[in-house]
């Protein structure tokens, strides 16, 4: 991995996947300064929100859930090279 560059996998499910028309893609953050000082979930959300109004709205729903490497986390969770970050609405299993 190049210095200052991070690549992560983004996954979207359910209504988010539908609203944004994507289910999975690689996100390469070539210049860490694109994001805030700390590369956390909040920073990734801010970065993706720049993709347009639909992204901004979808990623800023009050009940949005974020899972980092298959575990639900808060927005202050730090994201690293190779991580898998998923966004989705509240789960309705069972």
């Amino acid at each position: 991995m190049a210095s200052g560059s991070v690549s992560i996998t983004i996954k979207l499910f359910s209504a988010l996947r539908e609203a944004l028309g994507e289910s999975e893609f690689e996100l390469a953050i070539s210049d860490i300064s694109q994001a805030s000082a700390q590369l956390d979930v909040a920073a990734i959300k801010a970065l993706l929100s720049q993709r347009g109004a639909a992204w901004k709205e979808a990623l800023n729903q009050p009940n949005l859930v974020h899972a980092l490497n298959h575990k639900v986390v808060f927005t202050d969770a730090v994201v690293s090279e190779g991580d898998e970050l998923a966004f989705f609405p509240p789960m309705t299993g069972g």
Partner: protein
Amino acid sequence: MSVALQSEAIDVAAEYTQLVGDRPGAAVVTFTGYVRDHSDQHAVTELELEHYPEMARKVLSDLGQLAAERFGLRNWRIVHRFGLLAVSETIVWVGAVADHRGEAISACELIMDTLKTDAPFWKREQGPAGEQWVASRDSDIARRARWQSGEAQ
């Protein structure tokens, strides 16, 4: 002590036989969930279950292990379906084997209550009125919270 994610219908009898084995524990509790023909407001003709496979497997495995440790289970099994399901089809099956009934009942209840809110599945109902994603229920969130507050046991 295992999890299955599958698109096929759940063979409840086969799951039971496999769960209890040759020398069953003293208390065996099972839960089976089926697709209902209605939701709170409207008729339902089909249910589509989207899931996040890797995370679902991890969440359900961790949940089974948590229940096993907390209630001293001899065996447990969680089977969850995904894909397109018709009314009256199985959605989920949970089995718990323990030395005493209270432990088996509580384990099954903990697993179901947690699975509803913490397992990455999303239901979309199809009916005469069209399709819609199922919203999480306040009552499910409240039942889940009981286990964290220590109210349930």
